[in-house]
């Protein structure tokens, strides 16, 4: 049963809920994409199946009047009105989809300046581990003890605006937190940014993945993220 469940439900909070990181305003666009995909898909499938059932060749059918003949360029068929319809309708649809894609971007790309954030974290990616450093003058709350070291483990407070300054030491990596919807490449020599408002994220344990292929232990380049209520 759970296999069937897995096949039916798309289980990822970051695209279904309006919360956290780069995922602000997601639910709307996800639903619209889903609905339009189903409409377009059904249109094609139903029309195709209708054609197969209604116009199937049966033995003894008369030769069609514009049947093809070897070495003869066939009559041109077409209908300008119909063809214009299925040019303009998709144009309107994709313009609409582009337009609604912009709303979450305003949130996503509006990374707060360092003085507007509560906490800045320097994220350093290297083959094949993550290192996290808090900004210099940050005093860790006393109950932050989930991480044995700052390598492969990060503990951040709940209820704050947090900015990640992401760097790479050797090759490309990518900083990916599934449930929060952050995905940002780490590029050597270029500081990239991501941010999250942890007011919108439940406290708990999350996983950080590397999603840009970086060599041998790419699939082992994981880290733990703890979001904890500071005391």
């Amino acid at each position, binding site marked *: 049963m759970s296999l069937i469940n*897995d096949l039916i439900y*798309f*289980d*990822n909070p970051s*695209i279904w809920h309006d919360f956290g990181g*780069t995922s602000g305003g*997601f639910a709307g666009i*996800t639903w619209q994409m889903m609905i339009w995909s189903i409409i*377009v898909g059904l249109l*094609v*499938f139903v*029309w*195709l199946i209708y*054609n197969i059932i209604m*116009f199937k*060749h049966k033995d003894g059918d008369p030769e*069609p009047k514009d049947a*093809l*003949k*070897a*070495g003869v*360029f*066939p009559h*041109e*068929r*077409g209908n300008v009105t119909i*063809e214009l319809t*299925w*040019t303009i309708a*998709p144009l309107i649809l994709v*313009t609409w989809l*582009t337009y609604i*894609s912009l709303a979450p971007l305003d949130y996503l790309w509006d990374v707060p300046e360092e003085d507007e954030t509560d906490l800045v974290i320097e994220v350093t990616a290297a*083959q*094949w*581990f993550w*290192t996290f450093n808090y900004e210099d003058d940050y005093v860790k709350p006393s109950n932050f003890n989930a991480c*044995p*070291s*700052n*390598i492969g483990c990060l503990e951040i407070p709940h209820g704050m605006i947090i900015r990640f300054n992401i760097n790479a*030491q050797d*090759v490309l990596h*990518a900083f*990916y937190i599934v449930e929060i919807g952050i*995905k940002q490449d780490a590029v*050597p*020599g*270029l500081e990239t940014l991501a941010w999250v408002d942890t007011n919108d994220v439940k406290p708990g344990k999350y996983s950080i*993945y*590397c*999603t840009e*292929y970086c*060599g041998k*232990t*790419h*699939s*082992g380049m*994981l*880290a733990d993220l703890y979001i904890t209520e500071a005391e």
Partner: protein
Amino acid sequence: MKAKSLKILSIGFLISILVAASAFPSGETSPNGIEPGPQEQNVVANGCNCHNLGDGDSNNPNSNVILNLTLPSNFTAGETYTLTLNLSGGPNNDSMNENQGGFFIKVSTGELNVINDNVRKPEGTTYLTHNEAGNNFREWNFSWTAPNSDSVVAKFDVWGNSVNGDANGADGNSGDYWNAQTFSLAGKNAVIVAESHELSTPKKIMYAFSIIAITLSVIVIGNRMVVKEQSFEEVLKDYWKSIYPWLTTTDHKYIGTLYICTGFGFFFIGGILGLLIRWQLFEPRLDGEFLTYEEYNSTFTIHGTTMIFMAAMPIIFGFANYLIPLQIGARDLAFPRLNALSYWLLPTGGLVVYMGYFTGGAGDVGWTGYTPYSSGETATTPGTDFWVAGQIMLGASSTLTAINFMTTMLRMRAPGVTLMRMPLFAWSIFVTVFLLLLSIPVFTIALILLMADRTFGTLYFNGSCVGDLMGTTACSDPILWQHLFWYFGHPEVYIVILPAFGVLSEIISTFSRRPIFGYTSMVYAMATIGIISFVVYGHHMFTTGADPLFRFIVMLTTMLVAIPTGIKIFNWLATMTGGSVVMKTPMVFALGTVITFTIGGITGIILASIPLDIAFHDTYFVVAHFHYVLVGGTIFAFLGGVYYWYPKMTGKMMNEKLGLLHFTLSFIFFNAAFYPMHNVGISGMPRRYATYDASLTELNQFISISAFIFGFAQLLFVYNVIASYKNGEEAGDNPWDGWSLEWATSSPPPHNSFKEIPTLRLAEEEVK
């Protein structure tokens, strides 16, 4: 006496607590020991995951650090020994013996145990490492209980970390170095033999195939010798006689056949690699349980490279070679010898790419070969160099082909075949070769620069900076490769899908027994796709941190591709409406392609939207998307193409029942294998991962099983092609009632393709 030792112990305990309390835990000597991070193999890969951010060569061991493990001369079964590990060399300081070092040890057999407070054994593990008290020492004691058999050799893998203890200050853990070493301890009765070299899995498969091939050829040749009573030389001479024309041919039909066979040959090799990937992902596996991580990485790299450059493109150019001269009424391509050169660069380039397997691991950079990984030292050497060199050859092959076809189609059309009266397959190839000529040289040049980076130490792609005497610094851009690659790479995916559109147009029109709906708009749609394809490539780079305006523009243009693609799909459906649809194998494959390609197109639109792409980029959702368009689009269409044009090429019909069975199995298990990848991707499984979160095991097993059935179903196709060649029904010149000029010549076509150059007539004139 007991009380006394207890007293000493408790004092020691107290002291160690005091020492531990004074040493602030801030990751300096990793107070909890060398914890292998999330997974043990991390530590094995890195040697150590702490302190390697120092100013030394962080990822490599340092030979100044000397490890010494004191061992007895041999061991007796079941006995317990006390071992001493000692660390010397590396940085030193005098900060009150605090934070001096750390270690990690594991053993192949027997059991390691803690005997004092400096060492700990994390619960559920078998290795030992220092604890917070232990990081103030450079010597540790622990016990090892020998296994029950003393005829084996125990191997101790040790990592040691020499620390300068200034971590609490501003310097952090800079200046710390580590080293790794392996010690062996033989049992009393062990017979020491030379270390056996275990073959890697791909090598085993390679050898297995070679052995099978050699055995088969011995059987075939031996059989001939016995049955025909010929000597070995005579048999070989006979074979040579039949092979010779294939090696020296410049005839487009022969070269086309060679291309198609080579393409499908590589398709099966690439398919086997794909199944290896699926077997690795059958359950979350550790490094080396089936494939090692390095082998897995080269497997997906060579799988991708093979499928795009050595399977899809050769199959396309095979059909183009065979059919374009026939469809436009020419005797051959404009430059037949150049055509032969293009072909022979393909198996050569392919062999060079695969050469990596014989030199200790094929290229492991992914088919995209992103720098600076591919230009750096951590990529497989020389496998990656072979990958680059082979790709340059394949690029040269495609460039020459593009020039050849462009000339042929512009200059050598038969009377009556104007540009706007070419069959749609010919039109799709015409657009494709323009895309090829404009895009693939860019990739070839990028590869040459990459080769220079790898071989001559230039710095085009690795992101490092060079200063000159004037004090200015110049830095290379690690993103540059992505711009060059995707400038080629995106038109490339249209290069492989446009000819499939051409095939679909031909098949759907022929089997609906009527002209295609909207011929002119089909041509313009293809040309529009071709033009737009050059301005969309940035959608592969939404997460790189590129300019937001750039990203917005490519989102818009990417969405626009949906319009001409939609026109094509609707025109096909409109062609069928009101027609007389004959459901033969080529047609069911074409209609199956319409369904799978539509799904792939829809997920393409979803990925074009930047916010959703950020959620799905580099996850299995993308893998599902491009398999839906490449397998469900290109490969399905060209399988249909084989069923459609096989009678023309061989004069024999293919078996219809086997064909329908092949389609049914392929279609069902293709969808079963690739549809769930959408779900896996949305759940957050990144692509190119050799292992994954255990919660996704069930779905991955379902995918793997379906993929295996899909793979084995293709054997039906091979059987059908071979069996029909021998026993198929006679086809006749025009078995499907097609219109284009290839159906006007005999099957198979005569030596010069046409007895006399035909003239394409017009239906309007025919009626009169």
